[in-house]
């Protein structure tokens, strides 16, 4: 495993997906396509909803009877992004593994307004950890609704490693980890080999 920051300016991957990958590779695969292919490979079911929560965006695919039924990608709103959660943990020096899931979350329809909920709550005496936990729960709820509020939801992306975020979903949640898109890329390599 090598971090992209350690790669030289002239590095070009043979096959890549993800943010900024297009200009650093010879062959680019659309992130949603990689997610769908990787999810299908790992989940192995005809019907599923898979939500990917990354640091810069969230996206989901829904398959019904083995075919794509619905999908979405939100890369604009800070109310749905993992980096907001990362920033908050650094700002308040919090460890998400130790924070209990709050009974209720903030309504985080907008990232900026959602953060003002945190500041207001802290000013009114709520412990910082609880205020942030409510925000995180609100973001999890946003993601759940974004994916169509399914009974069972598969989750991928870096936030699978955040216990508070994972426990905040109001449904049966199955985490797949952060490498589902890589599995999606592998399906391309397999298809290429089969073709040749």
């Amino acid at each position, binding site marked *: 495993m090598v971090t992209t920051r350690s790669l030289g300016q002239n590095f070009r991957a043979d096959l890549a997906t993800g943010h900024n990958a297009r200009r650093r590779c010879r062959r680019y695969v*659309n*992130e*949603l*396509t990689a997610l*769908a292919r990787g999810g299908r490979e790992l989940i192995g079911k005809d019907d599923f909803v898979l939500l990917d929560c990354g640091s810069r*965006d969230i996206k989901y*695919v829904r398959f*019904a009877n083995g*075919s*794509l*039924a*619905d*999908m*979405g*990608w*939100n*890369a*604009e709103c800070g109310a749905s992004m993992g980096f907001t959660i990362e920033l908050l943990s650094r700002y308040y020096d919090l460890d998400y593994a130790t924070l209990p899931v709050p009974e209720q979350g903030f309504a985080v329809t907008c990232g900026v307004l959602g953060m003002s909920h945190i500041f207001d709550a802290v000013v009114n005496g709520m412990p910082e950890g609880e205020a942030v936990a409510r925000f995180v729960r609100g973001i999890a709820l946003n993601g759940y609704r974004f994916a169509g509020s399914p009974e069972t939801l598969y989750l991928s992306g870096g936030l699978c490693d955040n216990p508070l975020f994972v426990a905040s979903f109001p449904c049966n949640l199955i985490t797949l980890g952060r490498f589902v898109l890589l599995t999606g890329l592998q399906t391309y390599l397999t298809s290429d080999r089969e073709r040749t």
Partner: protein
Amino acid sequence: MQAETMESLAGKLVGIVGVPPLAVIRQLLAAGAEMVDLDEPQVRKSIDLTASYLPRVYCAVLRTVVLNAMHLDLEAIFIDVGPGKCDCALHVSRILQRFCPKVVTTRNTDSTGFGYSTCRCRMDLAEKFACITAHVRKETAPPPRPSCTPTAGFWGVPPRDFSILSLFPETTHVYGWTRCMENKTPADLDLEAHFNPSVPTVFFAQAFCAKTALARHLADLHPCSLYLDCDVTASGSVRAKIEAFLELSGAGKTD
């Protein structure tokens, strides 16, 4: 508008917004007015210049209308504000009075259908939209064309940013208000709400447009759909969503 007023528009630049009634288009053509479609970008100016008159968070098509009106020397504007357009157009018609001495509001309830063969033919999608929108300024519909078997669907209004249309195959059928435009019945809600459930379809609306509600509703009803909204220009994620949807649904370009 009175006949003598129409006659005064001979050779003058007249803006139209939405799809004014056919009777009005005929009068303008008979008078020899030079019509320009204000829904489409007509000037190379920043859309942010409209911020003095409209909220920035507002329909990009109507912001484009105002931008055009600010910079074109228009003798008159005919803006449809009826059920074939939107309530926002009604409000914008007042703002347009700041830039043009004659702003005429119309309510198009034309119900005679002219057909929509362009929506169903095999043609580059951007050319298809250009053909349909160009015929808003004419009293005739586009020439009849043979229908093709659809592999993808595009439901909605002509987008502010036509570049997203290049992602679709030539065998994309067009639905929604664009189909109503070609049919010259912009207030026909039944035709607007029609879709083909066997064709993977992108349900598109301009961000901040009331039609987002209908687009989302119909996308929910369709078994293989993508709901999409987009503001002034298509972001990378908007293009990627379309690309992925067409590829994963098997509706993508084959050529």
